[in-house]
């Protein structure tokens, strides 16, 4: 993939469909065609360094896996924080 190739994938993030470019990160695809890693995604959404937890397609994504390319078109993500509650 060329660095200038702005291939887009669609992810459902917190219930909203959002499109993310994957080509400009220059990451290699894995054998399942997954291209984007969580670290890049968080950076794209201005969430880097925040205290968040992530679920992908119903499964927890541990922080240790944030750098692995694992996101593919159509993935459903939940990104949560702690808020005030009783």
């Amino acid at each position, binding site marked *: 993939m060329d660095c200038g190739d702005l291939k887009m994938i669609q992810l459902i*993030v*917190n*219930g*909203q469909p*959002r499109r993310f470019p994957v080509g400009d990160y220059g990451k290699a695809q894995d054998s399942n065609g997954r291209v984007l890693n969580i670290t890049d995604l968080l950076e794209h*959404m*201005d*969430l880097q360094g*925040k*205290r*968040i*937890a*992530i*679920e992908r397609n*119903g499964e*927890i994504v*541990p*922080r240790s896996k944030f750098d692995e390319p694992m996101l593919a078109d159509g993935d459903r993500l*939940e*990104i*949560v*924080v*702690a*808020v*005030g*509650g*009783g």
Partner: protein
Amino acid sequence: MRKRETVLDHLNIAGKDYSSRLLVGTGKYKDFPETRAAVGASGAEIITVAIRRTNLGQNPGEPNLLDVLPPSQYTLLPNTAGCYTVEDAVRTLRLARELLDGHTLVKLEVLGDPKTLYPNMVETIKAAEILIKEGFQVMVYTSDDPIAAKQLEEIGCVAIMPLASLIGSGMGILNPWNLQIIIENASVPVIVDAGVGTASDAAIAMELGCDGVLMNTAIAAAQNPILMASAMKKAVEAGREAYLAGRMPKKLYSASPSSPVEGTIAGSSAQQAKTNPFS
């Protein structure tokens, strides 16, 4: 001076001692400074938090609750408020455990109805079983049904948290008799969760023998939340001490003077007593 019994009277949940028996929520405050001040005034060591989707693309510099109430200082108790199914509750707490670096102490509530926020006990028991199997230490919100409370204990919940009245209602202790049965049957802490409206409610809960009280709205919705937090701290302590002290028996229609009956300067007191229409 003799050390009072209460000095070493800790609340023990899942093997950990807490010196405060007041647990507080962190919702409904005006802002984070007020949250922090009220939590501080309450003296609570265990504080509940909710898990919610983060705002995307809005307020990137927004402060985070965990910066205001750091897990290094408080035992955070993530809840499942707003969950109506086993799946939602379990997923929420898995996310909470990841968010809080493997923290396993959680508050489970599976609600049955948005109007009353009454717990769905069938779903609550199912969710508790799954969570306990996955290694969570589950403090569980329950109806004041003694049988359901006992079942939750038997499947391994570390604290049973019956409602005193509906969440956020401030109606106080509506069924002290059921709470008493639950307390008598339980060998894990029983914590009244929901319904406390003011300090006397918290004191009554503790006098009944509850091991603690969890509240949010009673403090957050007071005219002066910080002062109410301080009042609740004292009420929980006072109620606990009264419980430990053991109250005097009630003597219906039978007065007993606190002062000596002999040696009064009015020599005719016995005479007066005889003319008492009640004697």
